[in-house]
């Protein structure tokens, strides 16, 4: 832990169109680490990334890369790669020329260019496509070219801006694991921006949840998933049933309470995922007001005295009909205890 951060953002403040988007952000990233910036659109994650790349001048604060202050360094001198959401391939160049562009600009010798392009193209599995123009490639292939183009120049830091969001679900999963493999193989330091919770958990060494230009919580995926510290993170991680706690029990959003036999000490707010709610037994009673079949599971919407809750059970377990009364339990061992809004 004593190892100094490879990339350090120090009280970084960013404005866009006169509006402060990111405020006094502090973030450190170790060499070889894959950090995912996770948050809803408008939380400042893309803006932060553009500032690291040098496409946006910070209003205040500093950016250090490898111990050197790069806050005022021109974008083309930073050796920071960026994979765009839109791929941003050069439409008039073949795959080979796209991937070779950065190397040629750096005046790498011709045979060295050929060797490194071949290696980059092979590492994303696009051998044989070198002569094609971007428009003759599928979305997934274009994404691979964009990736190859960025890694061919061996950037010190690679930024990825929602690179998989334009791909279909199956391809997204495939590219996700491939990205992770490449990152390990090349020992690349990466910052990955997304608003997709599942993508963040699957890829990250560390997830940084952002909200309105600030870091809400930062930690390993498991910690973020299991122990969200705020209501905001909890909601993002799928804890959809959120209650305030008082001396007697749970208070729903409607202000009505649900008495509890035992009370979790210390916590002000507790939250359950739909899967954390136990149906078909327990001290509470509710009415099923909606059921949707999701394949693996069935999701129920249940009216309770403290407002509606969501519950999910395995598709093979007992079903509850719409309108029927059902007993349920909110066990504290499946709850997240939250200490902040």
């Amino acid at each position, binding site marked *: 832990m004593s190892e100094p951060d490879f990339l350090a953002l120090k009280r970084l403040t960013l404005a866009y169109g006169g509006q402060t988007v990111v405020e006094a952000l502090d973030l450190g990233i170790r060499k070889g680490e894959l950090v995912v910036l996770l948050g809803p659109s408008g939380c400042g994650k893309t803006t932060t990334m553009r500032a690291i790349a*040098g*496409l946006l001048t910070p209003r205040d604060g500093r950016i250090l890369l490898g111990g050197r202050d790069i806050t005022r360094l021109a974008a*083309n001198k930073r050796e920071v790669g960026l994979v*765009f959401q839109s791929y*941003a391939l050069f439409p008039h160049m073949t795959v080979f020329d796209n991937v070779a562009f950065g190397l040629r*600009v750096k005046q790498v010798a011709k045979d060295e260019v050929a060797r490194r392009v071949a290696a980059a193209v092979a590492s994303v599995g696009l051998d044989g496509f070198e002569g094609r123009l971007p428009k003759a490639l599928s979305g997934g292939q274009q994404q691979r070219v964009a990736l190859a183009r960025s890694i061919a120049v061996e950037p010190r830091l690679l930024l990825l801006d929602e690179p998989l969001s334009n791909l279909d679900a199956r391809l997204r999963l495939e590219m996700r694991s491939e990205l992770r493999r490449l990152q390990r193989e090349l020992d690349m330091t990466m910052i990955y921006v997304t608003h997709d919770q599942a993508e963040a958990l699957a890829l990250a060494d560390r997830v940084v949840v952002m909200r309105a230009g600030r870091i809400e919580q930062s930690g390993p995926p498991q910690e973020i998933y299991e122990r969200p510290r705020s209501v905001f993170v909890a909601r993002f991680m799928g804890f959809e049933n959120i209650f305030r706690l008082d001396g007697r029990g749970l208070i729903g959003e409607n202000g009505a309470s649900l008495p509890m036999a035992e009370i979790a000490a210390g916590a002000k707010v507790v939250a359950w995922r739909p899967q954390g709610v136990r149906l078909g037994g327990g001290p509470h009673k509710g009415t099923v007001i909606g059921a949707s079949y999701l394949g693996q599971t069935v999701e129920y919407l249940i009216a309770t005295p403290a407002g509606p809750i969501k519950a999910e059970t395995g598709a093979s377990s007992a079903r509850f009909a719409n309108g029927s009364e059902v007993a349920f339990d909110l066990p504290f061992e499946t709850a997240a205890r939250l200490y902040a809004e």
Partner: protein
Amino acid sequence: MRKLSHAVIVLVLLFLLGPFVIICIAGLSSGETLAFPPPGISWRWVEAVFAVESFRASFTLSLLLGVGATLAALILGIPAAYGLDRYRVPGGGILRNVVTAPIVVPGIIVGLALLRHLLVPLRLPLTLGLFLGHTALLIPYAVRVVSASLANLRVDIEEAAILLGASRARTFFLIVLPNIRAGIVAAFILGFVTSFNQVSVSLFLSGPGVTTLPIDMLFYMDFNYDPSVAALSALLAILSIIVVLAAERFVGLSRYV
């Protein structure tokens, strides 16, 4: 109702194409004076056009002027369009209007102003005056057409080039220019045709020995009332049509204008 709308279409087409058809037929006249309908059909006046010495000189001047002024307008207009499109300059909107204003200012005013306040006080040679006048006139076309193709070009490919280590200038030449090539060709053709057909500005800036083809034709008409002017007009119109059709075919001119 249907009959009426057909009639309107026919009338509009007649109004648009009629003069062209009349000029073509008049140019093929076998008579001695410009007349419609002509007494007979022959190629003699078409051949006569190529025999007139001053037509050859003014055609060459118009050709060189068109190419030169259009190139100059593009050299000034492309960076202007790029700057206006990519950078948020204070007053950029006003600047854009100023740059493109000559399109709506009558050529006669531009011509007179250039003559009175540039050519005469500075004692500039006539050819230079014509070149400057035409360049000024064509810059708006260059800016507009190039702006249109820049608007279709994503900014992120420039950012991608910069992050791969390219300087701004290199990005412009290696990434931006090749992708707006069709727009530049379109601007060139439009500019050239505009310059070549220009009368009002040229009228003020022409002089003894230095006249563009349209002005030369006007002067010629003052002294000779034969069908060669009609034949020449028809030839020029056909040339313009071929150029524009070729441009439409190869770069899709209509996307830019």
